[in-house]
């Protein structure tokens, strides 16, 4: 009974000594601290305020060979927020040059006789050239143009047949009101701000512990730790705990200083749950970093290995591109990325107000990855000194 108590007290003492060592070491690197602060405030502010993921104002050049009221009416419908008419192209070559330079994205050509043919009901074709070097923008511009043209054609045809004007209310049209949920106004800033915060937390969670570990190896101080009465767990655990603490403070700063006051993100769920899960996430991800650290012999190697871990995690998490579009094998790969679960959890808690019960599968998935990675890391760490 007394022995167990003694053991626990010793373990706690060792833990607190190691923890204060780690925190001191971190706090002495001023540049690093400043940069952590920058990343969790300015960087997140920029991402949240700056980025809107919607199509704005595709620069459009027009060629109007008709010059009638009808053609002006049609071109007048190509307006913001989807199109921005920047000018008139005098001939085809000028239009093509503008597309080549990237000055214009769309060139619309209205043929001679549009107005006349509309009156007689003859079919007429409007030509559109789209720069599809960006395939998504090209698609959106085309689909908006299609919508504008169809509606214009329908209205003029109905008017010609004497069914238009006020009588259009008596046609069996289906009006579809599309409502976008959670972010009713597609507040991209919420989305971008939160995912940027998670990304930054990920970068630090992998890099900080990995770097701290490899630095000890490189300088040889790890030998001192290994010959001390500390167990491998006793060496690794305080490192991870201290870094987790720093990162959680960073997340708190970005949440309470940037995201909530400046962008009024509605915290619908429990903040306690969010921080609890964040701690779990940082822990898990730190395990990945330590994994890299045990393989690497110097910081340069550790750095390249962590790029290999971090870049796919951030790029393929589903925050920037739809996961439905990924091939099967990559989606399988993403199941082992803790960020994949954390993203669901963070959005669930902050924006959707989900609770522990609804998030249980995600939390369980993340925890099991964490245990696996941490366990593996411990085994590897021990083995390299045997």
């Amino acid at each position: 009974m007394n022995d167990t108590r003694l053991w626990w007290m010793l373990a706690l003492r060792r833990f607190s000594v190691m923890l204060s060592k780690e925190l001191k070491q971190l706090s002495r690197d001023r540049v690093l601290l400043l940069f952590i602060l920058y990343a969790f405030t300015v960087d997140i502010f920029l991402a949240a305020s700056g980025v809107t993921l919607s199509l704005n104002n595709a620069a459009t050049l027009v060629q109007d060979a008709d010059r009638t009221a009808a053609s002006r009416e049609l071109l007048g419908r190509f307006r913001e927020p989807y199109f921005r008419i920047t000018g008139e192209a005098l001939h085809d070559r000028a239009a093509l040059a503008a597309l080549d330079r990237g000055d214009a994205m769309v060139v619309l050509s209205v043929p001679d006789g549009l107005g006349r043919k509309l009156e007689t009901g003859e079919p007429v074709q409007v030509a559109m050239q789209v720069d599809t070097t960006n395939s998504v923008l090209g698609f959106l511009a085309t689909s908006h143009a299609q919508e504008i043209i169809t509606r214009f054609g329908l209205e003029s045809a109905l008017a010609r047949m004497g069914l238009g004007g006020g009588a259009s209310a008596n046609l069996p049209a289906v009006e579809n009101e599309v409502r976008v949920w959670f972010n009713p106004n597609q507040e991209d800033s919420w989305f971008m701000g939160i995912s940027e915060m998670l990304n930054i937390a990920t970068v630090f969670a992998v890099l900080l512990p990995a770097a701290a570990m490899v630095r000890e190896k490189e300088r040889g101080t790890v030998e001192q730790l290994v010959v001390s009465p500390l167990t491998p767990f006793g060496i690794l655990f305080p490192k991870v705990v201290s870094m987790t603490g720093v990162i959680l403070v960073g997340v708190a700063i970005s949440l309470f200083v940037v995201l909530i006051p400046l962008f009024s993100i509605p915290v619908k769920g429990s903040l306690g749950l969010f921080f609890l899960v964040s701690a779990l996430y940082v822990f898990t991800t730190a395990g990945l970093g330590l994994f890299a650290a045990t393989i690497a012999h110097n910081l340069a190697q550790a750095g390249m290995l962590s790029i290999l871990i971090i870049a796919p995690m951030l790029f393929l998490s589903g925050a920037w591109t739809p996961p439905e579009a990924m091939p099967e094998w990559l989606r399988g790969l993403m199941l082992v990325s803790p960020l994949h679960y954390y993203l669901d959890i963070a959005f669930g808690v902050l924006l959707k107000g989900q609770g522990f019960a609804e998030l249980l599968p995600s939390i369980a998935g993340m925890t099991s990855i964490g245990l696996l990675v941490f366990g593996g890391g411990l085994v590897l760490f021990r083995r390299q000194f045997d």
Partner: protein
Amino acid sequence: MNFKRVAAIAYKEWREIVRDRLFFSLAFVVPALLMVLFGYGLSLDVENIPFAVVDHDKSAQSREYAYRFIGSRYFRFEGYAINETQAARLIEDGRVRVVLVLPPRFGRDLAAGQPVTMQTLVDGTFPSRAMTTKGYVTAINAAFSLGSIAQAVSQVTGLGRDAVLAQLTPVRLETRYLYNQSVASIWSLAPKLIMVILMLSPPFLTALGVVREKENGSIFNIYASSVSRGEFLLGKLAPYVAISTANILVLWTLATMLYRVPFKGDFGFFLGATLVYVLCTTGIGLLVSVLVRTQVAAMIVTMIVTMIPAVLYSGLIIPIVSLGSGARAMAHLMPAMYYTDIVVGCFLKGVGWAALWRPVAILAAYATVLYTAGYLLFSKRPRT
């Protein structure tokens, strides 16, 4: 400047890199692997959007409306929901992204020639996807609506339905896709991946290379030697630029062979312009390494400065025109945006110096500024 000394430094650095087998292989493996992963993973196509239907009407017309979506390859039918509450829960759980709500009397009103208002709920958690989804929904709805109007008009006028349909769409849009005729997302993606990867890996290699000497203390050998600042930096950077140049070729080969992106431009121009870009990104690494003292800081600063801007503020996922003012300023401050124009121009548009001299000039100026700053800030007698 004594080139013998530069060569000696470069040779020393090269030996150091090559002897570190793991690091040397990672310098080549990381870019190639990222190219493969991102090429398959960063697809911007929106297909198989899971959706559910709440049908309060259960008439032939409402079923036909739903079938327009079920039959589309853009949507994947997940089943009917009983009411809006259940549908809302499906969206909240992320099981479906779109819910169609068809009101009672949908069929009856349409048959009576009355307009109908219905609702579609779209999960807005991913705004770019929500936008594209909205586009698909609107297009399918427009087609259905047009068919329904045509039906009504044909009943009034006695003309055939197809004839009425043709009359109702007198204006057709003839679309010509330029540069990327099949609107393949990989064609627009792969060239930009070269931009991102060359933004990630060279600065990282460089920053660690210089700071390593600082942290190990081996830089005091340099401080005490007759090697000048310029000679040291030049020799130090040369091997990293060489590695990155080899990587340019690897990435170009992957883009053209693996992803089959056409290369329409002039290869010489492409190589030259890319080299200027690599000098820029290497310069970022140099500047970071001069400013920080520890490798940990070098790693983190480089990663935050390069990785996230390279994705968000470069036109890779979000086009520059859609950026807000702060982010747009950020984009103009980073070399990535200018190089995006170059690499897309070379691959897809087949344009050369005449159309792209401006971004190349900006990149060259950028590199000059970075190296000058790095040179001025690097001191052989640092305050410690």
